[in-house]
């Protein structure tokens, strides 16, 4: 079965920082039969409030609206909205460990200017790269999957312009 890639959506929710909230939200999203692409949570500016960014795939506007309305129905959710791709910044961070010849790495570094966390002998590097998902994907492609040792990505966090 081929699955058509649907439009990626980011939903931002401000929620009460208490046990069970994440469970409740993820359960509702499962019930709506979405596979969460990424989900990030951090403390918001206000005390006792968390900021949650969820990305999932859906073409149908009204279905996204349903998810948002059902999120807002939870007493724990203070506010939820969709972030328009054009009107917001979506960013993530990745830490990547790989083995690459020095020359090849230097060439890459010219293009991406990543932060080197560790450069070990035997051409093993640990680097940190931040930016839009596409930038990280492109860096990983340029490194080449045969060179990866380990990859850690945070998933998307986002903010309105």
């Amino acid at each position, binding site marked *: 079965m081929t699955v058509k890639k649907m439009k990626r959506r980011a939903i931002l929710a401000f*929620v*009460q920082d208490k046990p*069970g909230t994440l*469970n*409740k939200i993820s*359960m*509702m999203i499962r*019930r709506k039969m979405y596979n969460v692409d990424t989900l990030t949570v951090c403390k918001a500016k206000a005390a006792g409030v968390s900021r949650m960014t969820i990305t999932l795939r859906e073409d149908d506007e*009204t279905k996204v*609206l*349903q998810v948002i*309305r*059902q999120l*807002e*129905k*939870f*007493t*724990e*959710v*203070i*506010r939820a909205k969709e972030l328009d791709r054009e009107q917001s910044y979506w960013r993530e961070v990745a830490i990547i460990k790989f083995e690459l010849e020095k020359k090849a790495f230097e060439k890459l570094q010219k293009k991406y200017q990543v932060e080197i966390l560790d450069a070990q002998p035997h051409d093993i590097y640990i680097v940190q790269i931040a930016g839009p998902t596409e930038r990280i994907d492109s860096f990983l492609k340029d490194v080449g999957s045969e060179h990866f040792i380990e990859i850690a990505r945070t998933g998307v966090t986002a903010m309105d312009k």
Partner: protein
Amino acid sequence: MKGTELVLRALHAKGVKYIFGYTGGAIMPIFDEMEKQKLFTFIMPRHEQGASFMAQGLSRASLSTDTPQIGVCMATSGPGAMNLVTGIADAHMDSVPMVSITGQVATGVIATDAFQESDVVGVMMPICKQTYMPLTTEEVEKTVHEAFYVATTGRFGPVVIDLPKDVQVQSVGEKYSFNPKTFRPKLPGFYYHPSPEREVVHQAIEMMNRSERPVMFCGHGVISSNAGAMLQEFAEKTNIPVAFTLHGLSAMPVDHPLSLGMMGMHGTVEANRAIMNADLIISFGMRFDDRVTGKLNEYAKNADVIHVEIDPSELDKNVATTVAINADVYRTLHVMLHDPELVSKPRRRWLKEVADNRKVTLDGVAEELASGVGDDGKLLMKSIISRLSDITAGKDIIVPDVGQHQMMAARFYNYQTNNSWFASGGAGTMGCSLPMAIGAKLARPDERVWSISGDGGFQMNMQELCTIMEQGTDVKIMILNNGYLGMVRQWQTLFFDGRYAGTPMTSPNYELIAKAYDLPYQKVTDLDQVDAAIRAAIDHNGAYILEFICDPSEVILPMIPSGGGFGDMIVSRPKS
């Protein structure tokens, strides 16, 4: 003060009189305190599911009285709590306010698979409005107050409080204080918007004034906000016919000239055709469930939709609105009714069309009712319900179970009393009737309550006969025994080539059952016994069981096949 005392103090402050509960290790301390205080009437079901439906019956029936009460059920941890699940899920689907309190193992052993430990919060979270697990005794009283607030504010729903045993038995510190009068729950995310926006109301009124073929929908929200009388006034003032959802029934007299009766899968021809041909739907407090709409892309194609609903997540969920009014039904009707722009139009052509549609099934039904029996000479459910309706002048409280008899009771009882019909709709839970009728009778002791079940559903919570015996509850019980899981049999007849898989139903000897519970009983097999039997039950001071032997081949029509549209409505019985 101990946690147990604080729970009970909060329940008392919330006007709770009845507690439906079943004890066990993790809830014993609360029961013990209850026994000391003797502030509540304790009612023991014979299965926790019974407790949950009794609580529902109490909440639903008392809603329209001067003293609304919220049903409270209690159970122990693990299996006790799990036995409440069906009744809580049912209350959630039907937006019934209810508070369930379950004992939990002590905080020190939670998540160690302790004896009788279940993850109650985890299980209940998706099937109720809110769950709580207070972890300190200081939180207990506040939690109960908040639970009542959440259950009864906005769209109603069931709330679960899971109370660890140590939190029950510990005492609060000296400095503890709580004032229920000044308490306001801190719920920054709890959205509640009861008043309609002026602008959308004006838009709606303009649309109604323009409409030539409008139809109004009366949903559960009309009952829940006690707006039945106002809806009737509004319908009369605007001259717009009214169709009812299953839960909207009894909000106004169902034989009112503007009433179209029930809509949807087993709705009347006049209701469903009006919807099919309407240019405007004005819907009050309902959610366009699939049993109401049938196939969505064929639904009310030519109609604009005004949707008045307290829960914003229901707006535009199944049916796209032209005007969405996110507000309380009562308040919205109040504003609309007094709007000087509102006009009444004769709409002669439309009402003539409606009147013509009423005639489609009239003769067939009249014929069936006149005969009263099916081909095999056995009683027709519709004639029994119709006789009950006539004898009681449509004034009694009807609590059906789930199945054909339920749809017959929805269609053939002539509801005259506001809020007098309590069914399981969204979940369609067989076995709900007997316990729900007990709760309803406690809420409205001066009214007559009929529990009407099929042979299948009756056997699901039959154990509650013992509660009836113990409490002396005066519930009139009808078993419409067709020897089948009739509603499923009907689908098998119509769509499965008459293969009756898993639907023939053996019943026990109900006479002996009645005897065992010390209840009077009559078996009714012939038409000429029906009236006398109903009257005997009415005249008897106390519960009474009537068993009617019914025709298994009777079908409830019209019917829109599952997944079909209104155009697919089966109006008369296919020739066999």
